[in-house]
């Protein structure tokens, strides 16, 4: 490109800038083992009380929380992310604001439903090994469909940053 690009060259350069920025989303992925670990952890967390009694939930809750916190901390550091198989870290500004809002709303809703279900007795739901079944379904779904789910979410998350890297 010359010192003074033509309009055609400028348009091509702008197109390339957009394409490259979009490429960033394709890099957000993790190693397969991360999904497997989380799938197994969810299964164990939910199934443990069925086999070891309600008292075990104290330990499983702490263990599961520790895994989630460790994962979050690792994601925020370059070395930790590399261990998880992430090669880049997306800028928050790149994520669509609408997606970020929905994301928070869904997480809040899941937390609220989880908390309410903990404290509300439900004697009519006396299905044997219900937790184990739910754990197997959720954990299995995460292991099998985790990567495609992540791809789908990333496609929804696109569109935060504009073409110039400005906000």
């Amino acid at each position, binding site marked *: 490109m010359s010192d003074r690009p033509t309009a055609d060259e*400028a348009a091509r350069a702008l197109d390339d*800038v957009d394409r490259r920025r979009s490429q960033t989303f394709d890099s957000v992925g993790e190693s397969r083992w991360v999904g497997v670990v989380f799938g197994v952890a969810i299964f164990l967390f939910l199934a443990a009380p069925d086999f070891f009694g309600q008292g075990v939930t104290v330990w499983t809750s702490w263990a599961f929380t520790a895994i989630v916190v460790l994962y979050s901390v690792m994601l925020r550091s370059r070395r930790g992310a590399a261990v998880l198989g992430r*090669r880049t870290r997306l800028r928050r500004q790149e994520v669509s604001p609408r997606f970020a809002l929905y994301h928070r709303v869904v997480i809040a809703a899941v937390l609220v439903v989880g908390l309410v279900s903990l404290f509300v007795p439900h004697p009519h739901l006396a299905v044997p090994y219900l937790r184990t079944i739910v754990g197997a379904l959720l954990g299995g779904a995460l292991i099998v469909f985790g990567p495609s789910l992540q791809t789908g979410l990333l496609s929804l998350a696109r569109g935060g940053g504009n073409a110039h890297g400005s906000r």
Partner: protein
Amino acid sequence: MAPADLDPLLLDPTRLSIVSLLAGTRWAEFGWVREAVDLSASALSKQVTTLGAQGYVEVEKGYVGKRPRTWLNLSDTGRTALEDHVRALQRIVDASRQAGRDHGGETDGRPPGAGGPPGDGVPHGGSVPHGGSVPHGGGAERRSPRGPSAG
């Protein structure tokens, strides 16, 4: 158009690609950038050195286990330079479009197509669609660039 806004360093397509890739990230592994821009390690290293000398790209080296890793990130200076450069490029495109309209090439709201001014270089109706934007999601924003990012 003020050509002074164009960053001479970013007029090189490879360097512009590298900086654009990094613009969407907080950091990226050297290996990922190398694969994305399809360069050899030495060629990318050379470009990164050039960008780093200008303060556009920061390099951090470390180990993950026993494997050496290099991470790159776009500095605030680099981000600002990219934004200014893209705005300047956009002005070139917009000026060309305006010139096309002034010459009567666009009367019905569509690009002039074959009727555009000779030599304006913009692929009317092709890769640069109506409205002066370039294909891809950021087109609308490009027509009215916003202020620099806080990073």
